[in-house]
């Protein structure tokens, strides 16, 4: 067998759950469910049966209850519980069929949201947060306000809360920006605040702060574009004229003016045009490309 076909075979088998038999015919749902929920079967076999089971989940109340029990039970191996979660989540895409199961599914997710297993907890909170679930939002906010109660790391909590603009997370995010537990948490807090109309002055300050990390300054530029686009244009111009600015931020500023600038005002801005014209030849490769795009757009 050639190397290529071996590789292809191994990639195909990687996509299949362990324990799934090659070329096996579809098994009846009753048999699948009995394997999936049988604690005496091997984990791989159960995971494989669950992976085939999504359509069977809502076939009967008994099937649903069995699968929810697997998900709920801390006695079950975590691989099996995660597979059960994935199967029910897959079933939920059939909105009409799943409607009968939905309320019990959500109630179970709320139970599992405080499970001792971190990965399961995080996935479950993710599903609930995308549903804008009040219970999940309250738990996540509690964790941000009191780290001892936190179910997920602060950056994850902020990321999940950002699914709902009405999740009352701005105050907690501001607190994290001021007293960040980690760089990642601060970054996520800033991303969340990019939808807070009152945060524009903070982003202006961060954008102009040369001591800030480039990523934070870029997040600030993006937030300003959403909140106060005219301010971004002002600052972007000033950054481009400042010869002591960093390349990354100048490239971001150049893109902002090229894409969103007032065409007439920019074209008439001789100082800026001269500066960009110089950049075209003298700056780093990244800026040169952006400068050429700018000059193409503004007619030079």
């Amino acid at each position, binding site marked *: 067998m050639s190397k290529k076909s071996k590789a292809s075979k191994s990639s195909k088998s990687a996509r299949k759950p362990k324990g799934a038999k090659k070329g096996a015919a579809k098994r009846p749902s009753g048999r699948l469910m009995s394997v999936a929920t049988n604690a005496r079967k091997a984990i791989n076999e159960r995971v494989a049966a669950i992976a085939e089971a999504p359509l069977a989940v809502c076939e009967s*109340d008994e099937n649903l209850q069995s699968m929810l029990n697997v998900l709920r039970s801390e006695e079950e191996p975590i691989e099996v519980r995660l597979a059960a979660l994935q199967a029910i989540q897959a079933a939920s895409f059939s*909105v*009409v*069929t799943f*409607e*009968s199961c*939905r*309320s*019990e599914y*959500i*109630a*179970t997710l*709320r*139970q599992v949201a405080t499970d001792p297993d971190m990965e399961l907890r995080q996935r479950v909170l993710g599903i609930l947060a995308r549903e*804008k*679930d*009040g*219970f999940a*939002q*309250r738990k996540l906010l509690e964790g941000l306000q009191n780290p001892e109660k936190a179910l997920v790391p602060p950056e994850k909590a902020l990321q999940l809360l950002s699914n*709902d*603009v*009405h*999740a*009352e997370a*701005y105050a907690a995010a501001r607190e994290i920006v001021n007293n960040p537990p980690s760089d990642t948490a601060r970054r996520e807090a800033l991303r969340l605040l990019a*939808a*807070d*109309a*009152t945060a524009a002055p903070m982003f202006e300050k961060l954008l102009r702060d040369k001591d800030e990390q480039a990523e934070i300054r870029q997040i600030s530029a993006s937030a300003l574009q959403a*909140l106060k*686009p005219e301010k971004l244009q002002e600052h972007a111009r000033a950054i481009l004229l400042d010869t002591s600015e960093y390349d990354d931020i100048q490239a971001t500023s150049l893109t902002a003016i090229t894409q969103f600038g007032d065409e007439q005002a920019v074209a008439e801005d001789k100082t800026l045009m001269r500066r960009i014209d110089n950049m075209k030849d003298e700056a780093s490769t990244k800026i040169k490309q952006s400068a050429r795009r700018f000059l193409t757009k503004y007619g030079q």
Partner: protein
Amino acid sequence: MQNVAMAGARSETEFASLVDALAADPDRREQLTELLREDHPVYDQRGAATTVRMRGWVLLALARAGVSDAALIFVLEELDAGVDAYLVAAAARALRSYPSPNAALAPFAMRALTNIRYHDEPVSFEGYGEYADSSSYTTPVRELLVTLAWLGPHARGVLHEVEALRAQHGGLPKKLLVEVDRAVEAIRGGQADEPDADCCTLPNGLSSTFSWALGSRRGSESIESTVFEDHGGASVTFREFFRGHPSIVVFFYTRCDNPLKCSLTVTKLARLQKLLEAQGLDDQIYTAAITYDPAFDLPARIHAYGQNRGVRMDDRHRMLRATDGVNALRSHFKLGVNFIESLVNRHRIEAYILDAEGRIAASFERIQWDEQQLVDRAIEVLNETSNEKSGGPVPEVSPRPVDAPARGKTASTMLGTLASVGVAFFPKCPICWAGYLSMFGVAGLERIPYYPWLQPLLFAVMLINLASVWLRGRSTGRMSGFYLVSAGAFAIVVSKLGLGLESVAIWGIALTLAGSLLSALNAKGRRLTARGGPA
């Protein structure tokens, strides 16, 4: 004694205790209704989820204490446009405590059932702020089915809808089929043929959805200098835009996540504008959609929001944001909205009609308003303005008859078609003309002189008809009429080229007639659709 007016600074637990105390005290139960007003200070600086928990608890207190006529509107509002499972379930339960079940309530329960059935989440009413995470819970669909059963024969008007949902695959959750059957049985019960005495009477509480201020309108002086920025970034003051003519004003914000509120309101504004246009009133009655969230809703954002919903935006019809914030507007319009920082946490549906002085002449609150009703009220205000200007009674300003332009268009179509016929049969020379005349002579007609200039004139009119059909096709989006008329015109022109294809002219006439007729029918269908008639 605990005071509702001072409830603003309370914690959620204290608020829940206050609500329980009010529900338990028959003399103070009416104060629960006050707590359901969105602009109540108790909701100031609370998040949306907190607001849901608080309002839900008040609705549940009403369910225990009984819903009064004054509180009914808040319950129906939740059923009419609510999308939160907890609030809809609580409202359904509260409705069952209204002392007089009424046929007018059934459509609200049915609408809620239709809106919420794919978001049937578990809710717990056990304690304040509890979320269901076990098997002992209820759901909005379950509560609504129990409410329909409570309405019994009063819900006969929606029985066919319940039965249709029952029969439809996935229409209602399988495990609730017992409740569905119970509701159907209750609705069918009682005197089957006995007409519902109060079938068409709206409960008293519902009358507050519309208010009509005659002779007692507040002046708009306090907000006359309020500056707005419109969808195109142009600045205009309240006085500049709202004085001199009646206006229809709705409120919205682009981040609203309830599709039955802001998104629907702005979509309906677009339909309302078309009604004004169809009645020729679009230059006499202005419209405006004002955002609750001016800090976030920048001109580009409100422009895109309006455009995506078909709103007409020009100097008379604008999407607006108040540049100095929404506070002045809040107090002038007494808006049913509250905020956490600058973000809306809850708002009601609200639309206003302003008179020519910018004063509020009428308001529509909470329940979905009807576009035609709003237009009719605005016309009344317009008539009233005309009366005031003339210093006495003057003839009413009537909407331009819809059929007048239609008649004009039909006449132009007929003229164009006749021109095509004229071109097809126009004689080539005076001898042919004599031949025609000899035929007319047989019919006893008077002598008609030969006018060679008539042919180019008829040809020009035929081209005008072609252009008119093209324009009509473009406006209706149906070009089939234009294609037929084009083919007809082509056939007529070919028949006149002297290629021995004179007989083609008959086909040309037939195609022209068919195309013109089709074009006129398409245009008529479109006008009827715009008026809400059959498409």
